[in-house]
C-alpha cells in the first residue's frame, strides 16, 4: 500500500529515485571508480571531461568524478547526523510547549527566542576556532540552533491540535499526559515535522558546502563539495568543471530532497 502511494506520487518517486542513486553511488564509490581520490597524476592535470576522466581532473591530476563521489559520502553523512539531535529535541520541546502551554510554553519560547538570535555562521566560526575546523563544529552548532525550526513548527501545530476536541476527549477519558503526547500528539505532528526536515536538510547541505568553501567546514584531505568548489575557483576561467561539477551535485541533492518533501506533503495533505 505504501509502495502504491509512492508510485502514484510522481514528485516523491522522482525524489526518492534521485536520492537513492546518489546514496548508492556514494556507498559504492570504491567499486565504481577505478581511481583513488587522493592519487595524484601530475602528467594529467586540469584535463577536461573525457572518456578516461568523466568529469576531468583537477590541478593535481586527481579524478574529479571520484572525488565527487567520496565527497557525497562525507556531505550526506554530515547532513543526516547533524539533523538527528535537533530533529528529536525540536519535536520534543515543541510538543511540550504546545501541549502544556502556560509556563512550559513561556520557558521554551524564551529559549527559542534566544537561540534564534544567534547568527549561525558566526557561531560556527567561533566553535571552529575553539575546537578546530571539521565536522564536529557543524554538529555542535547544529545541536545548539538547529532544533528551533522544528520546535516552532511543532509547537504551533500542537497547540492547534490541543484546542481540538479529541485531545479534550483523551483528557476526560483519564489518559495521562505522556500517553497523549507520545501516543496521539506525536503521530499527528510527525508528518509535518518530516516535511520540515526535508527542507531543513537542503539548507543544512548548503551550509556545510558554504563552510567548506570558507575553509572552516570539513577539513582536507577528506573530500567535500564545498572545498572542491573553493579549490576550483582559481581555475574557473579555464577549467570550469572543477567548480561546476560539485555545484551541480549540491543542486541535484537539493532538488531530490525538495521533491521528497513535496511528495510527502502531497500525500499527507490528501489524507
Amino acid at each position, binding site marked *: 500500500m505504501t509502495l502504491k502511494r509512492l508510485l502514484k506520487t510522481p514528485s516523491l518517486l522522482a525524489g526518492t529515485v534521485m536520492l537513492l542513486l546518489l546514496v548508492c553511488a556514494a556507498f559504492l564509490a570504491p567499486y565504481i571508480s577505478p581511481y583513488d581520490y587522493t592519487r595524484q597524476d601530475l602528467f594529467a592535470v586540469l584535463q577536461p571531461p573525457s572518456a578516461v576522466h568523466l568529469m576531468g581532473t583537477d590541478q593535481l591530476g586527481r579524478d574529479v568524478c571520484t572525488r565527487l563521489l567520496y565527497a557525497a559520502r562525507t556531505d550526506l553523512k554530515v547532513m543526516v547526523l547533524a539533523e538527528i539531535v535537533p530533529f528529536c529535541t525540536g519535536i520534543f520541546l515543541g510538543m511540550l510547549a504546545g501541549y502544556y502551554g502556560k509556563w512550559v510554553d513561556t520557558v521554551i519560547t524564551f529559549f527559542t527566542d534566544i537561540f534564534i538570535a544567534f547568527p549561525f555562521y558566526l557561531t560556527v566560526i567561533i566553535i571552529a576556532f575553539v575546537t578546530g575546523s571539521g565536522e564536529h563544529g557543524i554538529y555542535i552548532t547544529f545541536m545548539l540552533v538547529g532544533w528551533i525550526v522544528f520546535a516552532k513548527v511543532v509547537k504551533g501545530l500542537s497547540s492547534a491540535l490541543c484546542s*481540538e476536541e*479529541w485531545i*479534550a476527549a*483523551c483528557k*476526560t477519558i*483519564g*489518559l495521562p499526559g505522556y500517553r497523549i503526547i507520545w*501516543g496521539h500528539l506525536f*503521530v499527528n505532528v510527525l508528518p509535518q515535522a518530516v516535511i520540515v526536515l526535508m527542507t531543513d536538510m537542503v539548507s543544512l547541505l548548503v551550509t556545510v558546502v558554504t563552510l567548506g568553501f570558507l575553509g572552516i567546514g570539513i577539513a582536507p584531505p577528506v573530500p567535500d563539495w564545498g572545498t572542491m568548489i573553493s579549490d576550483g575557483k582559481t581555475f574557473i576561467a579555464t577549467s570550469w568543471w572543477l567548480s561546476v561539477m560539485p555545484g551541480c551535485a549540491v543542486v541535484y541533492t537539493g532538488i531530490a530532497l525538495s521533491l521528497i518533501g513535496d511528495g510527502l506533503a502531497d500525500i499527507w495533505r490528501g489524507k
Partner: protein
Amino acid sequence: MTAADTVLNVSHLSLSSSVQKNLVSDVSFSIAPGECLGLVGESGSGKTITLRSILGILPPGIVLTGGSIEKHGSCAMIFQNPVSALDPLCPVVSQLVEVIRCHQKMSRESALVQADELLRMLDLPVSLERLDRYPGQLSGGQCQRIMIAIALACRPDLLLCDEPTTALDVTVQKQIIAVLRNLQHTLEFSMLFVTHNLAVASALCTSLCVMKQGTVVEKGDTKSVLSRPQTEYTKLLIRSVLPVPECGKEE
C-alpha cells in the same frame, strides 16, 4: 438529599470569561445514582460550559469564579461531534484498547477481548475488529458508538453527554438514544444529558433543568416540567418542538 447519596453535586456555580462576566451564574443541581438529568436550553445558555467545567476542560479564557463542584465517582464524557472527538490518525479499536488498558491494568490480548465485547454490546460491525479502521472511514453514528464504548470502558459512575445526537441524522439519533437508555438500565450509571432538543431530553431523562442565559429557570422531574411548565421560557421551548404531522388524521 445529602452529599453522600449523590454522584454529582454542583452548587452555586459561576463561570466568567474576560469578555463577558457571568456566562453562568449561580447554577445548582445534583444527580442521584441511577438518575438521568437533562440540561436543556437554547444555544448560548451555558449548558455546554457547565458540563465542561465539571470535567475541568473549559475552553481557554473561561474561569470558575464561584461555587463548587463535588464528584463522587468517576466520570466519562460523550461529545457533540463524534468524528472530531477521536484521534484521526489512530485506528478506532486501538483507541478503545488503550483506554481499557489505561483503566484496568491488563495485557493487550485480554483488552482486545473486552473491546470486542463492548463493540458487540453497541452493535458495531464486526469489520471494526480488524485493527485498521480510522475515524474518517466510519459514519457519524458509528463514531458516536465508538465514543460511547470508550466512555464505558472507563466504567463511569456518571456519564456526561454533550448534545451527543445533534450532529447525527434523525434515524441514527433514535438508535443512539435507545443504546444509551438500554446501557443505563443494564449498567446503572447516572447521566447528565445536555441538549437543546426537549423531545430527546424527555425520552431519556428522569428530571430536567431548564437553563436560560446562564441561569437555571426551572427544575423538576420530567413529567411535571413538561405537563405544568412554570415559566414562559419553558413553555416556549415546549412549543418549539416540531410536531410530526400525522397522516390521515384531519383536524
